[in-house]
């Protein structure tokens, strides 16, 4: 269905080859997963399939890509619209209509299909992706998961033979992600659709993949069955890491496989009784009776919460449950809130300038919002001047967090992980008592995530500071947080130690605990350390 023959790609003004001499044939009805570190060219590979690269982006392409026999060099991306449906990394940026129904028909209208065909297909796709109740809704009012489904539906509705998705679950909560992926799985099996997905959160997609294409960022690619590629890859989901840590001879990719392989282990080992860490730190954040109203709807209702020093608290919940609202209220930038939020005894609404920087550090969902310098160096110097600390301090922090960033690079040109590192070092340079992060792991690969976890734990433990983090990433929460708060409809549903909260619902359980259930292990590190204790 898709055939890459000797494909190489170089972008202008760049010295690195994105893809070198790639030969790949994807057959009909195959689900291929593209993995690789951040910024390695996964998106480029996907966009090569319908010719957006190089038609839209420029770049030098050698070799040939043919989809269903049509070479992408000869037609524009639009000429393949009937064959390929493509869903970008951020579907909200690609919407061209106001309501769900208008969005769905946009592609069909462009292909000049007759009215009868369009009517039939709209109904069909509304049912397929369970969008029927939303058909007349304005797209802007939908949640992230719903928007993602609309984007997939509008790519599906023209009956393409190939569906290309760039990180379809990165913005979704675990349950919405599960829903989207199981729909894709069904489409592959029922309609023999060919699907190509790029994704960082392997734990979510790995069980659906037929083959993996691994891009290393320096041009070389490896193609193979999931078991082959994951055997010696650096990017592996926790489940494979667990298999490696236990020294299993086989690689288990699904929870079911690994449970079969670890049956004996589970029967002979018991996790050590963790002494319940009671937090003795004094209260840092005191939220009482918080209410936030948006457009007449309550985003947060009568919420009370106290967070102590050196706690790492994860806030979880569905898309649109009020996580970001709560974070903004704690940071004191929520306009429509009532109630009191005290950080270090100070009203967070009234913090300004230096005092604010030294009290609260905030990393927004788009870390680049914080950055405005023309180069990394300029950005770091500005932070030094703002905080009246010796020049070079921020630079040093950055070098510790993410080594190897050139000072002359423009913040825009950094990879997702590097940009987060830069924003983080700018914020950390003022040494805040509280660090707040909103969804920091979007677009981060496993290695970048590991670095982030290490930094945050050190920040909290060594400097005795608190971290509050809102995220959908269950694995991150398992490894990082000491306490988890679960929010639904603006109310706290669960609040307790991470292990208690995560293990109480199967949808939010991390992979390791699914494999090890009923034994309460959360992470690979937990399993390894309890093995050591036994020895």
């Amino acid at each position, binding site marked *: 269905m898709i055939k890459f023959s000797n494909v190489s790609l170089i972008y202008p003004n760049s010295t690195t080859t994105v893809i070198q001499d790639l030969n790949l044939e994807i057959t009909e009805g195959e689900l291929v997963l593209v993995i690789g570190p951040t910024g390695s060219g996964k998106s480029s590979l996907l966009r090569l399939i319908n010719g957006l690269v190089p038609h839209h982006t420029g770049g030098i392409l050698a070799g040939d890509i043919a989809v269903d026999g049509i070479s992408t060099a000869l037609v524009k991306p639009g000429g393949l*619209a009937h064959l390929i449906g493509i869903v970008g990394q951020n579907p909200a940026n690609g919407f*061209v209509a106001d309501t769900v129904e208008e969005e769905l028909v946009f592609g069909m*209208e*462009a*292909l000049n299909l007759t*009215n009868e065909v369009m009517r039939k297909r709209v109904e069909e796709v509304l049912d397929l992706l369970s969008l029927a109740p939303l058909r007349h809704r304005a797209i*802007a009012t939908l949640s992230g998961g719903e928007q993602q489904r609309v984007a997939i539906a509008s790519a599906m509705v023209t009956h393409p033979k190939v569906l290309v998705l760039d990180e379809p679950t990165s913005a979704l909560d675990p349950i919405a992600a599960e829903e989207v992926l199981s729909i894709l799985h069904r489409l592959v099996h029922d309609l023999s659709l060919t699907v190509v997905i790029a994704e960082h959160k392997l734990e979510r997609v790995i069980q659906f993949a037929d083959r993996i294409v691994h891009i290393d960022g320096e041009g070389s690619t490896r193609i193979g069955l999931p078991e082959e590629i994951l055997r010696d890859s650096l990017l592996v989901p926790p489940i494979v890491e667990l298999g490696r840590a236990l020294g299993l001879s086989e690689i288990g990719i699904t929870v079911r496989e690994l449970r079969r392989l670890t049956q004996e282990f589970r029967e002979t080992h018991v996790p050590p009784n963790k002494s319940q860490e009671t937090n003795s730190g004094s209260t840092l954040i005191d939220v009482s009776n918080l209410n936030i109203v948006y457009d007449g709807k309550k985003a947060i209702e009568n919420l009370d919460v106290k967070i102590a020093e050196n706690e790492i608290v994860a806030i979880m919940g569905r898309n649109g449950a009020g996580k970001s609202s709560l974070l903004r209220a704690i940071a004191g930038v929520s306009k429509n809130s009532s109630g009191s939020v005290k950080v270090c005894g100070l009203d967070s609404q009234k913090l300004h300038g230096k005092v*604010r*920087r030294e009290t609260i550090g905030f990393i927004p969902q788009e870390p680049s919002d914080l950055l405005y310098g023309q180069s990394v160096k300029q950005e770091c110097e500005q932070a030094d001047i703002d905080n009246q600390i010796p020049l070079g301090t921020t630079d040093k922090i950055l070098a510790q967090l993410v080594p190897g960033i050139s000072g002359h690079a423009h913040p825009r040109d950094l990879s997702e992980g590097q940009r987060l590192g830069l924003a983080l070092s700018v914020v950390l340079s003022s040494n805040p008592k509280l660090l707040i992060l909103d969804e920091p792991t979007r677009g981060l690969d496993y290695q970048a995530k590991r670095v982030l976890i290490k930094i945050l734990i050190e920040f909290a433990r060594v400097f005795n500071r608190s971290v509050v983090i809102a995220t959908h990433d269950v694995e991150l929460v398992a490894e990082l947080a000491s306490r988890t708060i679960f929010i639904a409809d603006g109310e706290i549903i669960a609040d307790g130690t991470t292990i208690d909260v995560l293990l109480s619902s199967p949808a939010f359980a991390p992979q390791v605990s699914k494999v090890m259930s009923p034994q309460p292990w959360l992470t690979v590190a937990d399993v390894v350390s309890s093995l050591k204790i036994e020895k």
Partner: protein
Amino acid sequence: MNKPRFHPLTWWIFSCAIAISIARVNSPIYAIAVVGVISVLVFTQKENAPWSKSFTWTLKLSLWIIALRAIIGVLIGVPIPGTVLFRIPILPLPHWMPGIRIGGNVTLERLTSSISEGIIICSIIVIFGAASSLTSPHRLLRVLPIYIYEFGISIVIATSVLPQLVSSVTRIRTAQRLRGQRTSGLTAFKRIAVPLLEESLSRSLDLAAAMDSRGYGINKKRSRYRPIKFARIDTAIISMGLLVVGLS
């Protein structure tokens, strides 16, 4: 939504008509009166959509333009004789720039003429701001003929990305405030403008890519799923606009 949905071209045609009438009447008082009526119309009719804010933005922009024009009009320009309000020293210019004078007597006539010109220009800008805040750019695109393809893409990008800028500004300002920065003044403007420009550029590229990969403009013919028809109310509004042009 209980408000009636108009044909997307209605308000644009109406605005064109009104703009022509403003230009023909050429009276600042008429222009201000029209802007007043249009403002009432916009604030009662607009939906809660991102592009609805463009009217308020054009209003703010207009005030800037008028002020700027008044200042420049006072400083530079042909001296109009009349009541002298005050004098500013004349800036000596080199001999190869004849006919241009900076400074000198500031007369009441000069001030009023530059302000009233400013008002007329700005009222036309505001009228089109009103049209764009009353019409969904996406619906507009659907009724435009396909052969103005490039134009169509630019319209969608301009009209859907620019309003999104408004929400991006709020978001970036919040982030900057969280970094403990001031959010007003010239330095702050630069701090907001840089990420904003970058973001809007990448958004526009995303949108253009999305439209392209969905086959926009590939076929010369485009089918309609739910054709948007001119209703009686649309005809009424447009004839009213034409009537105003006729009377002016």
